[in-house]
């Protein structure tokens, strides 16, 4: 049951990803990409990673759609017929080989949810035991992000704000140009 649900979700993911690449109309591609990240969020939720699913649903399906549409506001919503660069056979040979290598390596990874895997024997029990007494936060992921690694999160927020300010500056000048023209 679980495997079939996973498999069908992964199939839908591949279908939507291929659709987003193949559709020529860029607005349609953005919409298909929105459904792609919704299926990704559903897959995370089904695997039990609720926080990742929340982020994917909010950022991928919500914000990214709006950002892509903003980009289309300022440009032409048509795909350019680009000339494919010559000498692509290394990519055609190398990428499948890389995929086979990754699949081969994945055999050695610990099983999903294995209690004896290294990540479940050293760090995770420590956080699980100490996060509630130390931080008084019932959600362990939130306590790791906001308490144990709060400096990390602070600096990440600073980076994102800087990027946002830079993007706002860029978008403002281009809109000003289009008004004066």
């Amino acid at each position: 049951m679980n495997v079939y649900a996973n498999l069908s979700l992964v199939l839908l993911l591949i279908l939507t990803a291929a659709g987003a690449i193949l559709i020529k109309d860029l607005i349609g591609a953005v919409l298909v990409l929105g459904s792609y990240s919704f299926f990704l969020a559903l897959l995370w939720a089904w695997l039990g990673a609720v926080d990742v699913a929340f982020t994917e649903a909010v950022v991928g399906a919500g914000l990214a759609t709006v950002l892509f549409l903003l980009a289309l506001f300022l440009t032409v919503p048509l795909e350019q017929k680009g000339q494919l660069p010559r000498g692509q056979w290394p990519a055609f040979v190398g990428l499948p080989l890389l995929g086979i290598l990754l699949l081969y390596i994945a055999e050695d990874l610990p099983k999903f949810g294995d209690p004896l895997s290294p990540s479940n024997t050293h760090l995770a029990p420590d956080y699980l035991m100490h996060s509630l007494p130390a931080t008084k936060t019932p959600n362990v992921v939130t306590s790791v992000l906001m308490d144990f690694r709060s400096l990390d999160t602070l600096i990440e927020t600073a980076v994102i704000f800087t990027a946002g300010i830079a993007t706002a500056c860029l978008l403002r000048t281009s809109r000003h140009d289009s008004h004066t023209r």
Partner: protein
Amino acid sequence: MNAFFIGMLIALALLIVVYLYRVIQGPTVFDRVLGLNGISSKAIILLVLIGTIYERVEMFVDISTGYALLNLVGSLAIAKYLEQKRGA
């Protein structure tokens, strides 16, 4: 009871496939917008159903609410874009 919820899950997933056909195939943009709206309204219910099966509804209600809110923003952005394109 769990079998009932899983049956609902599968039925909703099949409905989503129908909408997905319209989103990918749809000849005009409006078909795609409507298809995406249909998918997301099913998605909200689907997330709550997964939460019910996992017995962690309170967490999944948060996700589905956030998804619903931001989906509204996305639909508004698409509508505004289409209106702008009409006017130009």
